[in-house]
């Protein structure tokens, strides 16, 4: 076993590159290309600010993904706690010195780039918990101490992010964390109990929500109660998607979008624009592309020998899935509006950075799938 370990360490760069998961890689690149075209459409068929920036970020972050993949999965395992801690520190820093914008304080200026640490936490929490469960004996999974520890690991960043305030991201962080608990073997009844508790305490939680958040929930329940105000986004989004029809209005011909009826079309509502222009066919195609990516990540997890890699891949696959589901449900009017980007497609550097880091670690797991981690 030891020998095997060493063997893996001595894998050459050429072999590493050969061992990359090309289906995943091609899917990600394909998605990136699509995202550039969609961004071009949001700019009204012109290469403007958003298209340029999105393209530049892809040019930087795609090689970064490969670069991360070239490190042994063991390396990432070792760094997991540290990364988690650093991101926590960034969150603390942001909560004191962060840049304020439209009522929330989520960002920090790192000269060439405005970073949103909460996005990085989406990856960091998976790494941290994957490492914790990798090391935790199966007998101790349901012990009081371990449950307390993992809940703290989840709660600390969640609370920081909620207080920014950023409900959407905090929910995604919490869900990403909880899925590792689930995979790690925490008793199903705990999940059921806490779900019931959550439902019962929902009215109390709602009473703690900020007025605008309450409004969003009310609007979700009945978008027509204020069609020009709070309900406007969701109504316009549904009109755009619905009017796309079977084969869409055609590239650059999404009237809802280019006549500015669609809000936030670069970020949270990017799918709406895509769906308006490419229709049902295009939307299902995009979902299939995402499904391939998720499936490949799960597949890489299942062929990985180490539980850290397994947990990370499964957890990350679920996270990607949840991002997509939350975003699509939102634009399709199935969930209240919570700010949540669509991976790769949405404009936003931090989200893309986090996603690419995730893919990088998954690819690293693939290259080193035989790697055992003590």
């Amino acid at each position, binding site marked *: 076993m030891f020998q095997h370990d060493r063997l893996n360490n001595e894998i050459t760069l050429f072999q590493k590159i050969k061992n990359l998961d090309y289906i995943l890689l091609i899917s990600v690149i394909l998605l990136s290309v699509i995202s550039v075209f969609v961004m071009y459409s949001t700019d009204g068929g012109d290469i403007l600010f958003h298209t340029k920036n999105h393209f530049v970020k892809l040019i930087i972050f795609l090689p970064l993904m490969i670069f991360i993949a070239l490190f042994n999965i063991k390396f990432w395992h070792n760094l997991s706690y540290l990364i988690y801690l650093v991101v926590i520190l960034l969150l603390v820093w942001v909560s004191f010195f962060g840049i304020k914008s439209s009522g929330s304080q989520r960002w920090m200026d790192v000269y060439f780039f405005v970073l949103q640490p909460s996005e990085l936490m989406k990856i960091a929490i998976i790494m941290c918990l994957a490492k914790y*469960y990798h090391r935790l*004996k*199966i*007998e101790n999974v349901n012990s009081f101490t371990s449950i307390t520890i993992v809940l703290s690991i989840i709660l600390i960043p969640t609370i920081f992010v909620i207080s920014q305030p950023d409900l959407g991201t905090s929910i995604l962080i919490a869900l990403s964390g909880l*899925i590792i608990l*689930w*995979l*790690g*073997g925490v008793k199903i009844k705990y999940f059921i109990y806490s779900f019931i508790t959550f439902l019962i305490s929902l009215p109390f939680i709602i009473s703690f929500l900020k007025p605008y958040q309450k409004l969003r929930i009310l609007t979700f329940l009945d978008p027509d109660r204020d069609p020009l105000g709070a309900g406007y986004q969701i109504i*316009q989004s*549904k*009109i*755009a*998607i*619905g*009017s*796309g*029809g*079977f084969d869409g209005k055609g590239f650059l011909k999404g*009237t*809802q979008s280019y*006549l*500015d*009826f669609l809000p936030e079309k670069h970020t949270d509502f990017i799918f709406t624009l895509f*769906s308006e222009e490419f*229709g*049902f066919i295009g*939307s*299902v195609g995009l*979902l299939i592309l995402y*499904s391939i990516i*998720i499936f490949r990540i*799960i597949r890489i*997890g*299942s062929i990985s020998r180490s*539980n850290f890699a*397994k*947990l990370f891949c*499964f957890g990350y696959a*679920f996270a990607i*899935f949840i991002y997509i*589901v939350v975003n*699509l*449900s939102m634009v*399709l009017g*199935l969930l209240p509006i919570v700010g949540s980007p669509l991976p790769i497609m949405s404009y936003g550097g931090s989200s893309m950075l986090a996603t690419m880091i995730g893919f990088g670690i998954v690819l690293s797991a693939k290259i080193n799938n035989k790697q055992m981690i003590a």
Partner: protein
Amino acid sequence: MIKSNSGIRKTDVINRRMFIIGAAKIVVFAAIVARLFSLQINENKKYLTLSDKNRIREWKLPPTRGNIVDYFGNVIAGNLKVYQLHIIPEQVENFNYLLVRLKKLLNLSDKKITRINKLKSELKPWDSIIVSENLSWSQFVKINNYLYDLVGVKPVMTISRNYPFKDVYTHVLGYVSQPNEQEILDNQIIQERFVPGMKIGKLGLEKRLENYLIGTNAIQRYEVNAYGKRINQLEHQKGEQGSKIRLTLDTEIQKACAELLNEKAGSISVMDIYTGDIIAMYSSPSYDPNLFLFGISQDEWQLIRNNPLKPLINKTLSGLYSPGSTIKPIVALSALENNVIDTKFKVKCTGKMELYGQTFHCWKEKGHGWVSLKNAMKQSCDTYFYEVARLLGVDRLNITAEKFGLGKKVLGQYFDNEKKGLFPNTKWKKNNLGRGWVLGETLITGIGQGYIQSTPLQLCMMTAQIANGGYAIKPKIIVDSNPVSYEDAKQSMESGLLFDSNSESLLDKKLFKDKKNIKIIQEAMFSSTNERFGTSYKSRIDDPKYQFAGKTGTAQVKRISKRERELDLELEQIPYKDRDHALYVAYGPYINPRYALSIIVEHGGSGSKAAAPIAKELFKLIIDRHNLRDQQSNFERITI
């Protein structure tokens, strides 16, 4: 190994649990696909409509009104290109500078500038402000010359109503102007087609026929963005011009009427005695309806409003006059029909008649001596008709008079302002004044004075129905969908039946009991104009082609006092307001009559001096145009 065992067990747990959520993921994705399907495939139509509703805005343009033409097809209410000046605030670089420039170029008032500024603050920046609705050609040229310096200014050519014959048709056509709120709300069609700047009929046929004349809006479809700004034009849907309406009127005769009544207050109506077509209908003085199109100025309005000759009143339909002696043919006819008198019946006129201590004067102080019906009509002997009326009684007279159209609206459905006048009887007085009828009132009714009130058009119709042999006609001013030729109308009348174009059935419209009686009246009217001592003998035409028969009338405006009777003042010596109205009714040519007319000159003095000479002038023209009119085919018929 233990470690490794537990490791394997842990892996199993992870894989098993992965499998569970894997299955859940498929379900969730399927749900999302289902939602996409329902939005994009099932409800596609609904959302496509909503999306179009979002992006497409329609701009209605004012509809083009239908033309109104005279019997010969001459346009009497048409449309004219006008030049307007619009400002599009969004395109203006310096609004104040622009206003200063425009103020100089067009001599705009300060009030106008304030209004433009107010409009600017109310409208969206891409909505145009109308600075001037009607630029003169020289102003339009000037603006176009300086256009390089007037950024944001748009000279626009549009269409406006125009009345080429100015005041000749005002009382018939009315005019158009901007509608007020109530007028928009009251008419469904106007409400649907209303666009700022649109004008609607305010009076006359323009108002009555609004729904036919209005036309449909041209529609411009634009794609707009979320803020309502026009992005590009999608389509231009042409509007349809309103229906063309052809009137029975003859512009030449109408113009002649206007000239003949120049500077007088009065009215002339001319009617086809068989078809009921109104050939001319003029009320004097008139005013230019074009003044109202772009808002009449206060000065001009005051000038029209304060004119003592009352141009705003359509005297033909709303003017109520005592018919005076023009009623005598009806009195005589009624008496003949009721066998109260015959042609041999004579009355001795001594210049006055005493009844229960009251004196009733004849216009001729010395009296006419023994007069028969024919002579009484010819010389308009009042005493004769006092006696006839006394014998006949007002109730029998009323029946005949109403048969011939007095006391009833003539064109009721077309003009709101038409009055129905009054022909009294005993019952009417009892009901309305609460007192019993007095015999003296019968006497003065017999010479067309007292309660009796009639419109000039009623007198014209009355005369027409005597002229055509005593058959009812239905006067009309619009050439309708079933025009009846004069021959058909005449033939059906003489067979005792009248073709009614509205009910499309033959109706008995005989107004007499004995045709002979009508003949007697016609002959009496002939002698009044064409025999010596006839009241309108001086206005006769001997040429049988133009020869006409008529009856003069002089309607007192106030009671003549004994003193005034003794003074016997000349017309010029009496104050204008107190002068008698001059009336004349006539028909011609005497052989094969075709047209009847009524003329009234307010405060003109006597009918023989002021009104009958007008008939002489007019009959020449009317009969000269007779063939032209007959040749005019019934083109373009419309249904009203």
